[in-house]
Structures are given as C-alpha cells and as structure tokens.
C-alpha cells in the first residue's frame, strides 16, 4: 500500500513537472476599477497522444475562476453558461477566445489594469497543474494577435 502511494505521488509529480498541455497567448481584458468580474482567454495546446481536459483554474486576483462558454443562438441572443470541463483532444489546440470559451474571474479583489500581468493556475485532468502569466490588454481588445495589427484602419 505504501509503495503504491509513493508510486502515485511520484507519478503525480512527474505529470505536473512534464505537462503535455501548454497554454499559449494567455491574455485578459482590462476592467473598470469597481469591476467584480473579468474575462481571460488562451490557447490550450495538447501536444500529447492522449486526450486531456481543463477542469478548473484559480488566480490570486479573484475569489474564484469559472470556466464559461458563450453560445449565440440562431436568434442572435448570447447565452453564457458555466462548463465543468473543457475537453482537450490529443494533438489539438483548443482556443479560448472572445465569443466562446473563457475564464471568468469572479469576485475580483483588484481591477485588471492594462499592461500588468497576473498568474493563473490551470488544473488539467491528466497534466496536473500549470501556472502561467496572463497579460492584461485593453478593455476592448480582441487578443494579442489583433493588438499587433493596427486597429481603426478602414482598409
């Protein structure tokens, strides 16, 4: 039994230290000073040969972090709902982006200020926990790629 527990502990450490899931381009939108919620987005890259899933997240700046999705029905109404887990199929990248999957930071303890960063810890079903730094972009930003391109140009 003791050996089994040690093996389990070792396996957990190994998976946590050698995650097969990468989180790229993590960013959040700046919020107003009194904002209670914030939204964050990222690319979840599963390099592994096995499926995984994002099952939770936490962040020191907010009371809780929920995984949410938005679905626009065919009448044009957006419906937001919490999801328990986000499946990450093997060798695929799952995008968390505006208008779809996002991290919903609830009970913000301080506003998200443009230009700052904050740590976000993601829990995966198999890959363990991964902590990343999230860049805070402008409140109306569409992400790091969109920011790199000039905005406001009619052509």
């Amino acid at each position, binding site marked *: 039994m003791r050996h089994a527990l040690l093996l389990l502990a070792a396996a957990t450490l190994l998976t946590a230290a050698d995650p097969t899931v990468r989180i790229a381009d993590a960013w959040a939108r700046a919020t*107003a000073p*009194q*904002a*209670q919620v*914030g939204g964050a987005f990222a690319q979840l890259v599963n390099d592994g040969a096995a499926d995984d899933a994002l099952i939770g997240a936490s962040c020191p700046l907010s009371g809780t972090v929920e995984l949410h999705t938005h679905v626009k029905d065919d*009448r*044009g109404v957006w419906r937001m*709902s919490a999801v328990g887990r986000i499946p990450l199929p093997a060798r695929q990248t799952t995008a968390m982006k*505006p208008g779809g999957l996002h991290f919903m930071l609830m009970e913000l303890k301080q506003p998200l200020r443009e230009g700052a960063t904050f740590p976000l810890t993601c829990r995966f079903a198999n890959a363990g926990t991964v902590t990343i730094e999230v860049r805070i972009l402008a409140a109306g930003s*569409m992400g790091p790629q969109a920011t790199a391109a000039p905005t406001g140009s009619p052509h």
Partner: protein
Amino acid sequence: MNGLPRLPLIVTAVVCLLAGLALGWLRLRHAWTADAPTPITCTARFTDHAGVPVQLTDCRGKVVLLYFGYTFCPDICPTELGYMARLLDALGPQAGRIIPVFISVDPERDTPAKLAEYVPLFHPRLRAWSGDATQIRLAADAFGAYYDKVQPAGGKPGHYLMNHTSTIFLLDGQGHLVGRFDSHTPLDEALTLLRKAL
C-alpha cells in the same frame, strides 16, 4: 431526466420561444440595411453616466450607435464596445457627429457611477445610459432587443448573468433605424453604412 428540477427546463423553453418570436429577424453576419429608414418610437427616459437626464429624441440631428448590454459581462459586451470604438476611430473627425450609446439592461448593478468608470475604458466619447427596469424594457422593445436575467444554479444572488441580444443599432439624424450589425460584420461594411447615415 430523473431528479433534475423541471422548472429551469420550462423557463428555458419559454425563454427560447419568446426569443424566437421576438428576434426571428435578427440574424447578423453581414450588416442589415433597412430598405427604407424605419421610424423608432422610443419614449424611454434615462440618466446618462454623468447623471444627466436623457432620452433618444435628444439625439436628433446626430447619428446614433446604440448597444444594449451590462458591465458584468466579461466577453460579449467588451467585444462589441471595442468594435464600436474601432468604428469611431476609423471615421476620424466625422465621428464627432455620432453619439455612441451603451444602454445597461442591468439597472440593479449598473449605477451611473459604475457606468462612468466603465465606458471610458472603450472610447472617450462613449455614453452610458441607465434607468429603471420599465424604461429599459420600453427602449429594448422599441428596437426588438431581447434580454433576460439568469441565475446560475448554486451561484450567489448577486452573480446573475444576462442573456442578451448583441446588436449595434444605427439611427440616422431623424431618429430612423437605418442599419444593424455586430462585431462579426466586416468593419468596412459597417463604415459604409455609417458614412451613408452621416
């Protein structure tokens, strides 16, 4: 299905039905242009984020961009308001003849003070209007915009969400609806409509 509470299902079904009836015409990928400018009768009275009473008729003579949303929205509203800001920036000095308005559908949480610190994050010229629930409903009905409050199961009472239409309405100087679009509409298409309205 056993053990699941039935009330949320019934509520969801009713909401879907009502949304379907109210918004069958709101499908946006490309900008929608009115065949003929459509008069909008909206007598709703609001307070803007500076605390000044305002109503839609006060905007006659100016082109109006109108969006219904709420500040607790972390995703859709910032996307649409960011798009609105890009339109204004793209128009340059012409944007001075446009009044961009964010109407909050969440009067419980969106006080004028809160809106005052929210809208400048997107554009210095963006206005925010709030009012009592009746006035907001009056305005939304005038535009065929839809919203309803959703309390997630197990969530705290103050943490409710709003399902809502995410459409930017374009009114010309006579207060007529001349177009609708959203952030999925190519910027050029929306700009063409705006320039026509100016």
